Structures are given as C-alpha cells and as structure tokens.
C-alpha cells in the first residue's frame, strides 16, 4: 500500500474509533441517567419527608427565574405577533394574531422556552452543585452514612422540576399573549377586545394537555440529565465545569428530541 492510502486508512479507522467511543459514552451516560430516574421514582415514596427540600428546589426553579421568564415570554409574544401579524395583514386577517400566538405557544413554544430557560439557569446550577458535592466527597460521605444520594438529592430535584415546569410554561404562555396584545394593538391596530376574542378561539384542550405533558417531561429530563452529569463529575479543577457544560448540551438535545417525539405521538 502506498503512503497516501495508509494515511487515509489510518484516518478513517481513527474516525471510526472516535465515533465508536462517542457512541459508547453516549449510551453509557443515557443508561446511567435512565437508571437514576428510575431510582428516583422509586424514592417518591419518601417525598413527604423531603417536602422542605422539594419546596426549596421549586422556589429556585420557579421564583428565582421569574424575571427571565417574564422577559422571554413577553418578547416571544411580541416577535410572534409582529412576524405573523405582518403576514396576516396582507390578507386583512390581522385580527387573528392572538389565535395564532396562543396556538403556537401552547403546543410548542411555551414548554420549549421554559425548557431553554430552566436548562440554562436551573439545570446547569444543579449539575454544578452536585458536581461540586461529588468532588468534595460529600456524595461519598452520604453513602457512608447509608443515605442514598438519589433520595437525598436527585428525587427532590426531579420532583420539583417536573412540578414547576408546567407552571413556568403556563406563565410564559400568558405573558406571550400579553406581549402579543401590545404589538397587535400598537402596530397592527387590533383592539384588545378583538384580540382576546380570537385568542380564545385558539385555545384547544388537546394542545393544552399535550403542552403541559411536554413541560412535565422536560422537567424530568432536565433534572435527571443535570443530576446524572453532576454525580459523575470527575475530580480536578476541570471536572465540575465539564459536567456543567455537558449537562446543558445534553439536556437541550434531549428536550428537542423528546419534544419532537411527543408531538409526533399526539399529532402525527
């Protein structure tokens, strides 16, 4: 074989090796995360004794992100109103703006925006916090005291996020409708009454329960993925940072993938 061929062959096998290693790492992490979630569902039986921790986590996820959620909600609504409204105006149907906004927000955008915000702020903080605990032997210390880290840390976080995500989504949807109303009113000259009237027509029961289900599942995904990366953080200065970054990327990907499949399941 000439040198060029050998080089290409080497590069090809090196590439295969890299893909293989990446795949194995992905499957390993995915398996670990699913097992972790299964174990935290088992520990739901102890949820009453962890009520304080669950409420604290809900507070972090809900109240502490209120400002960001408000801004994101309002601006998403304003953008949607502007984009769809201008198009609708061509047909003289700008009064339908509210209907489009609430339909797209409940089905997709509300839970999705909530997931983005909570992944970035709450999920990353979870991975960093648990990763730090891991690096400073706190997880091992729990094990030594026969306290399950899953019961002590993971279950409360998963429960809190699963419960708070639908609430955050609804909040974002409501604010998006308000933001949309402002744009509809000031730029498209649609009165509030007309806007609201048509907005109501865009509310579909199915869209709402599928949207809330999505939000609920996103909450489980984000907390599960973040805790899993945190618990597997490696020691050293870079360990926690690496765990945090990976958890954000993985949560985000999983939210997109699951979001698609839930949509396909109910609307496909």
């Amino acid at each position: 074989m000439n040198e060029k061929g050998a080089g290409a062959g080497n590069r090809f096998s090196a590439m295969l090796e890299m893909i293989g290693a990446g795949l194995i790492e992905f499957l390993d992490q995915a398996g670990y995360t699913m097992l972790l979630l299964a174990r935290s569902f088992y520990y739901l039986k102890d949820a009453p004794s962890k009520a304080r921790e669950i409420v604290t986590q809900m507070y972090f996820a809900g109240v502490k992100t209120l400002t960001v959620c408000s801004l994101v909600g309002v601006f998403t609504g304003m953008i949607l109103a502007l984009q769809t409204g201008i198009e609708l105006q061509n047909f003289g149907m700008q009064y339908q703006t509210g209907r489009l906004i609430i339909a797209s927000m409940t089905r997709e955008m509300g839970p999705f925006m909530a997931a983005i915000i909570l992944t970035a702020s709450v999920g990353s903080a979870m991975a960093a916090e648990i990763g730090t605990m891991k690096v400073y032997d706190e997880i091992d210390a729990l094990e030594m005291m026969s306290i399950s880290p899953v019961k002590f840390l993971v279950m409360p976080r998963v429960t809190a996020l699963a419960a708070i995500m639908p609430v955050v989504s609804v909040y974002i949807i409501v604010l998006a409708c308000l933001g949309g109303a402002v744009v509809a009113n000031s730029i498209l000259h649609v009165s509030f009454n007309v806007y609201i009237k048509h907005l109501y027509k865009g509310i579909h029961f199915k869209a709402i329960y599928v949207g809330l289900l999505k939000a609920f599942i996103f909450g489980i995904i984000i907390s599960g993925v973040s805790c899993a990366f945190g618990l597997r953080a490696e020691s050293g200065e870079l360990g926690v940072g690496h765990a945090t970054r990976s958890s954000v990327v993985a949560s985000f990907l999983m939210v997109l993938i699951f979001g698609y499949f839930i949509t396909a399941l109910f609307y496909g």
Partner: protein
Amino acid sequence: MTVIEFIDIHKSFGPKRVLAGFNLKIEKGESFVIIGQSGIGKTVALRHVAGLLSPDSGRVLVEGIQVNGARPAALRKLRERMGVLFQSGALINWMTVAENVALPLSEHRRFPRREIERRVDEKLELLELSDAKFKTPSEISGGMKKRVALARVLMSNPDIILYDEPTTGLDPVMSMVISELIRQMQRDFGVTSLVVTHDMKSAFHVGDRIGMLYGGELVQVGTPDEIMNSDNLVVRQFINGELEGPIRAQ
C-alpha cells in the same frame, strides 16, 4: 483479632500506578497511622477500606469480610459501624452545623428527635463547637469544619474510624486536641483507627504503629520509636523533612 486487612492491593488510575503490592494488617483497638508525601496514595488506600474504591487486584477485608465486591446490603452493614473523616470535611453546605452533625441519625428516623438533639449537643460540646451550632459551613473556619465533620463521624458511635488528615489546617493546639481525641476514642470505646496524615507530631502522638507509604507500598512499618530511629533512607528523609534523599519533590 485483625479488623482491617489489605492483601496485595494494586490500584492504578489510567497509567498512574498508585498502590502496588500494598499489604497491611490492623488489629482490633489499634491505632495505625499511614504517613507519606502528598499525592502518594494515602487517601486512595483509606478509601479502599470503606469500599469507596475497588482495587484492580487484591483483597480488602474488614473483620474477615471482603469489602471489594461485597453486596450492597453487606457493605451497608459494614459502613454502619464505620466512620470516615474526609480530608475535605464533606459537610453539606446548605445545612447548619447542627443539622450536619445530626445527619447520620436524622435521615434514618430510628431515633427520637430528643435523643438526636441530645447527642448533637454532646458532640458539639466535646469539640468546642457549641457557639457554631446554627451557623452554616460557609460561615466557619476550615479548622472548625474539620471538627464539625469529626462530630458527625462520632454521632453514630462507630467502632472503626478512618481519619483522612484529621489535623491538617488546624493550629498546633487544636491539632493536639484532635490527636488526643483520637486516642481517647481508642481508649474509652475500643475504636480501631486508621489515620492518614503528614503531620508528624500528630502521627507520633496518635499511632501505636506507623507505616510509611512510598512507591505504592508500605516501605516500613513500626512503632513510633522504630520509625523515629529508622535507618530507611526514605523514612528518614520524610520525617526529618530533608532536601537530600530518594524522595524528589513532584
């Protein structure tokens, strides 16, 4: 009776060989000290006893029961009678000192709250921490954290205690207080202790026997007197803190 036994332990992390042919037997009620330079593998050795690390080869026995590869239930039972003072303290930072100390008992609801509170107060007093009771770990000094961690270890009255650098970061007086406390635990409650340290003063005070870890194994094991008068070059260089000798700074 042998309580802790390492049999030909080998442990590497990637290419780095940390333990290679590590052997040690610790008797009931004995206080054994492992000394050695930073990064040599003292913590790694200690973690094997608690089943927090598994050897690549070899066996770790605690009271005749093999720790590596033990079933979760068996491991839990062993750990119930064992306490580990972690090098970093490993306190839960959103809980107060009192809550941290109560943790080994409060999570299991086997004890009435009154009893837990009584024991917390008792341990806090023993370690001169009563004033810090309602502070969080971020509000107290490093030395205090170490003492809180020790108080937490003592809560469950373990009969085997593994101390990872119990006196590092403490002032000389407090260091002596802790060393004496380790001795007291041994005297009054028959606690078997494994202490890992590079604080030589504390090592000589606490140890019935001392072992020097170097190159993955214990290069010398002996009484404090034997160690102090050792003619092993590695041991002599280490305990005297000399620049010349087989040990190189890393």
